[in-house]
């Protein structure tokens, strides 16, 4: 998993709770590199699972709730780091449509072998879209958080519905903009 996800998570903990809390989580998780993440690094997904597991215990929130909140926060980080991607698009649905072609290309520049989730537009109208989502790690909640933050970025209200498909790790979002 890309380093920026880890650094963003730690940033969020430090920012939203406190540096002490962030440190506490890192120490408790007994991470391989003791939490010395760099945004351009690439780290095992298990570490993220460890961190989220400890957060679930500490906060009493569900993992999906935590991931949604994190996704929402992550969008801000990503848009700051890769603003050019957003600059070329002028609507939420358009941005989502080009997710695979644009944003993931940036990841592949450094990590040609990275495991990235895949998006596929199944149908699209001016205000609605059916987006199929495939994630080995089943991080659909994270994706929802990202989408919600993006909706906020474009100043629109997004209605979304999640459907789990029979194929493993595959989900379908029915999105519409009010």
């Amino acid at each position, binding site marked *: 998993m890309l380093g920026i996800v880890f650094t963003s998570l730690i940033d969020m903990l430090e920012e939203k709770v406190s540096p002490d809390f962030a440190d506490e989580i*890192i120490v408790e998780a007994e991470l391989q590199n*003791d*939490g*010395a993440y760099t*945004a*351009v*690094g690439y780290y095992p997904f298990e570490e993220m699972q460890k961190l989220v597991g400890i957060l679930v215990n500490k906060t009493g929130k569900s993992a999906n709730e935590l991931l949604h909140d994190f996704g929402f926060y992550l969008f801000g980080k990503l848009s700051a780091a890769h603003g050019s991607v957003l600059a070329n698009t002028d609507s939420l649905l358009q941005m989502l449509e080009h997710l695979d072609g644009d944003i993931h290309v940036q990841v592949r520049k450094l990590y040609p072998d990275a495991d990235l989730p895949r998006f596929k537009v199944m149908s699209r109208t001016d205000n609605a879209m059916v987006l199929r989502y495939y994630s080995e790690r089943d991080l659909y909640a994270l994706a929802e958080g990202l989408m919600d933050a993006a909706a906020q970025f474009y100043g629109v209200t997004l209605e979304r519905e999640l459907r789990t498909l029979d194929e493993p790790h595959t989900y379908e979002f029915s999105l519409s903009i009010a």
Partner: protein
Amino acid sequence: MPNKHALEQFEQLERRVQREKIARQHAEALLTEKSEALYLKLIETQQLQKNLELALWASQESFWSWRADTDVMDIRSYSLHSESVSTWSGTLIALLERVHQEDIENLQFHWAMALHGKRDRIEFSFRLNIQNEFQWVRLRGRVLERGKAGEALQIVGTTKDITQQRKAEQSFHLMASAFASSREPMLVLSPDLLITECNEAFTNMIGAAMKDKCLGMDFNSLLTAEKVDAASLESAKQQRFESKVRMLSGKEKAVDISVALFETYLQSTSYLIATMRDISDRKANEAKLRQLALFDDLTGLSNRNALRESFTAYAETESPFLLVFIDLDGFKAINDNAGHERGDEELRRVGRLLSCTFTNRGTVGRWGGDEFIAVLPNIGMQEAVEKAKHLIELIEKDVISTQRIELRLSASIGIAQYPEHSDTIEGLIQNADAAMYQAKTLGKGRVFVYEHGLYESMAKQVTLVNSLKRAVENHLLDFYIQGKYDNTGQLRGGEVLCRWISGLHGVVSPGTFIPIAEENNLDAQIGLQALEAACDYISIMESQQGVAIPLSINVSGNQVLDTQFPSQASAICAENHVSPSMIEIELTESILIRDESAALDALNNLRQAGFRLSLDDFGTGFSSLSYLRNFHFDVVKVDRSLIKDIHLSSKANALFNGLVTMLKSLNIEVVIEGVEIESYLPFMQQADITLMQGFYFDKPMPYEQFIARHITRAAR
């Protein structure tokens, strides 16, 4: 407690700093690793590109690209060592300015098809001005990208200089059209002699309406005489022969055929090129010449050559035969009193009588002048004598009346038998001639059969002078020709030389009989006869070949000084319709020694009559240079003694060169005599000699032989 809290605070900070440090180091390591990988990738990419460029270079192609947004066409070529070189870059309009006028329309058409049509592939050739020279360029390309309206946005491709290829194609087309339009029949044959290609001249020659009729035919099946020898072609590579080709109509045509073997580039296959020439005209000419060579013009009987051939043929089969020698009595009187034409008519009449008398018994012919010979294998002596006697009666029957007198022709006949009287042809003729002399001696109008010992006693009685007198009076001398050649071997002229083959004395050399002729005043007649022969030869050449070569004759000092000679000579030329400028009179310096002023007058007269004058044997005798000063000779013939061993002696060479230089500076044409061996030729070339005569080129030979030889030469 506060201390403990402070300590924890400190430890936490320490951990966070440590995390940041490690993260930074990790990021740095990552950066190094990634930039290394990136660099290697770049090198690899560059190498790949270089490989592509080298591939283009190796195939001698240039890369070009065009973009609609800039309308710029960029042509790049590559080299083995340096970076890519942009050979040309500019708009399409700028490119068109350098395209050959004739190719612009084609280029625009193809470009428009790619640009607006649906055609993605583009390929055409045009001439492009490169450094003020048009080179053929082949352009290939593909449309890479099209806009919404289907218009091409980007086109890329390669170009190649195909000038050499074009030249080769053009030269191929040129060769092909030369082959097709050649007036000489030409064919391409497979190694097993099947016709794979032929031109129109060939189909015309064999009378085929279509080329297809000929293709696939066996070439040898068309030849009815000699055929192509495929086996010997393998080693000799070429062949030339005369043969006959059967036309589709079934008729045959004489042809000269050249066949050459060619191997293709990789020698995997070979083919033959055959060219043919219609030589039927030449063959007809040769036949005509053969006719001329073997038959007497006047009487239509066999001539001396043909008679000799038949003697030889009979002698070879070793069958006995009789040789009947007939000499007319009183013929000179008819010629002198009734005229040459009447004389000729009598000769023709005798010829007819002779033919009738000996029909189916052998060959009859005119030996020369008023002498005839019959060669009779199928007859007994008794019968021959009777027939001969009867012949004399028939000859005597005709009475030729002139205004003043009546003339009667008769004949004396001598007969000799082969092999009883002589087993050589010369001997037999001498015997028959001696017998004829005996008949004359006994009172003319008689037949005499040779008896042993007659020739020997006759030879004593009949002197060379008498024989020569008879030969001159009866026109029995022969006039041979020896050619004069330029330094390319081309025939430019000839010298008429007198030869005497006497019945009684055999071959008598000019060195022997010319002094006798001069002592006995026979030289003037010989000179006139030589001139007649020269005129005769020239007019035959003109009528048969359209052109003639100038001929020279030898004239004795006495004759030149004879005041009658210029008018006599002019008359002979006029009679034969030959321009005197075609006749060169060769004389020796002896006349100038005798009476220089008279000689100069005589020479001036001949000059005025239009004859060319030549000083013969220059370099022997006195060779007084004052002659050259006092009189203008058109030609000087340098004596053979001056060029002898010229290739061995530098002294001889120096003398020769000095002499030639002197003569040339006097504006005199130089003829070198006695060019006998090839080694002399470089010295002749060096001295810029334009006319040569000698055994290297040819020996003096009878006119018929001479002409036959040169007709064949000219035709080749």
